[in-house]
């Protein structure tokens, strides 16, 4: 069952199109990372999921209904990119208040989350650091064990240990069947927790790939060094090899699949050095958006 389903989802303000004919579907239990540059339409899409913004055209269904329905929102844990709560509210007050107007949280669960994230429960919100506010936001988002988590830059301001804790929290919720909509510029977060990635560019879905696709693509680039400049066709007969380039004594190539045959051929040719470079999500991200800089 699709937990999030967008069909031709479009949001315009005058001549500006923030989200353009977005079609996507996120399955139950899936973690979908929605990535893009600043202003690409990520937050606008998230805000349409929660009915903060009304689509200009198209539609989006969330948990089988509309984000306008309070019953649907009761099943969503939301962490906005820039969390703002009343200035003087403390962590404990926020938990009580937002718990009282939503699905009541389990006290033991709240205590556990607050402890794992090291949340300051007594300090007024406006006195907390960026990371401290993020911790409050994460506790509030996770405390009711929601069926859908909508998380916008969840680890912004968190130290590496807490980023790790966050990844554990997401993994635990996923294991319990929850769906996660994640926006992040921290690629390691995405690579650790996402099942699928959507790249949005100027409001349009530029590409979608599963983490399996990504892993296949990361079978990498290899650079070999030889005592003498090798012939450019030296690896023509090796299966899976492409993009062979020779520069002086260095030969670089890309290989899809097992690298055994490449290594055997390199040994035959007397290679003296080998370096590998794995394509990461960040490379794909940069490739997708390279060239769009000048268009902005």
């Amino acid at each position, binding site marked *: 069952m699709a937990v999030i389903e967008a069909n031709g989802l479009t949001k315009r303000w005058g001549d500006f199109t923030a989200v353009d004919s977005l079609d996507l579907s996120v399955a139950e239990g899936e973690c979908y990372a929605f990535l893009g540059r600043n202003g690409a339409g990520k937050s606008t899409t998230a805000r349409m999921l929660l009915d*903060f913004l*009304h689509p200009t055209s198209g539609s989006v269904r969330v948990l089988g209904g509309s984000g306008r329905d309070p019953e649907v929102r*009761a099943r969503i844990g*939301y962490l906005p990119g*820039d969390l*703002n709560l*009343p*200035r003087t509210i403390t962590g404990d007050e926020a938990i009580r208040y*937002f718990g009282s107007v939503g699905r009541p949280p389990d006290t033991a669960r709240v205590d556990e989350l607050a402890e794992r994230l090291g949340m300051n429960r007594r300090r007024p919100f406006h006195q907390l650091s960026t990371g401290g506010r993020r911790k409050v936001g994460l506790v509030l988002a996770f405390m009711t064990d929601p069926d859908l988590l909508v998380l916008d830059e969840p680890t912004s301001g968190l130290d590496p240990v807490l980023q790790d804790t966050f990844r554990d929290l997401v993994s635990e919720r996923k294991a319990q069947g929850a769906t996660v909509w994640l926006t992040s510029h921290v690629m390691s977060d995405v690579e650790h927790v996402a099942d699928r990635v959507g790249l949005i560019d100027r409001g349009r879905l530029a590409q979608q790939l599963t983490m399996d696709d990504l892993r296949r693509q990361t079978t990498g680039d290899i650079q070999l060094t030889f005592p003498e400049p090798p012939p450019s066709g030296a690896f023509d007969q090796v299966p899976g090899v492409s993009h062979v380039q020779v520069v002086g004594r260095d030969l670089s190539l890309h290989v899809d699949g097992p690298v055994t045959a490449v290594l055997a051929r390199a040994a035959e040719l007397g290679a003296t050095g080998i370096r590998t470079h794995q394509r990461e999500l960040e490379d794909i991200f940069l490739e997708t958006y390279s060239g769009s800089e000048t268009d902005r």
Partner: protein
Amino acid sequence: MSDVWRIYVRWMRDRRRSTIWWSVGITIVSVVTAAFYPSLTSATSGGLGASDNATMSSVLGLGAGIDPSTPVGFLWSFNYSNQLPWLLMALGIALGTAAIAGDESDGTLEYLLAKPVTRTQVASARFAGMVTVLVVASIVNLVGVAATMPFFDLTDPVTVTAVDGSTSTAAGADLSDLLIGGLSAMAVGLGSGAVAYFVGAATGRRGYALGVASGFAVAGYVLYTLSNVTGSLDWLTWASPWRWFIDDAMMVNGLTLDVLWPFVLAVVALLAGWQLFLRRDLRS
């Protein structure tokens, strides 16, 4: 406990300090003004009769038959017709702006609306909060003035000498005078707050709400005063809350049905603002 109540209580709680400060400040202004009554009346020896100057009369709320040397006339012309409504207007506009547009500009409204509450619940709770703070400030002011006015001879009857030499006795001020004066001033504050609430709910913009409501209050005052001075554009002064407020001078002349106008305006602003709030996008 309903969600509306919880949202209302939280909003009130976030404003408890400002409510206390506003209430105390307004009351201090009223009490300090009242404290001038003995010295003012003795200094002028009852010569504070209605001015011939139309501008000053408008400013002081000195309609026909209002004598500022009497206790009620003094309270009306030196506080309840000008300072108090202005202060309650400022409070009303601040609250009406904060109700939706202020929280929306701060980003706190969005997070609340991510929870299973409706915009209707938020709009009604916030409106109720605005009214409550205005009522609390008005009650504190009422209690403060009522408790201190015996010390300033404002409860004593006074003998007034008219221009023709005849004398009459004016009663001292009592609680009902303060109630009526406070109610009509609060109504003006509520009307202005309702304008701010409406613009804020309709647009989500703090600046618009503040600007339009303040303009409504100030322009209405200027319009009414200039019209009194020049005698022109009288028909337009019906758009000004000051027209019925000062012309009726309810604290002196007794309550009239005109006091209902701001309440009608508030209901219309609530309904229209609520409907527009339901239909628009939240600002980020």
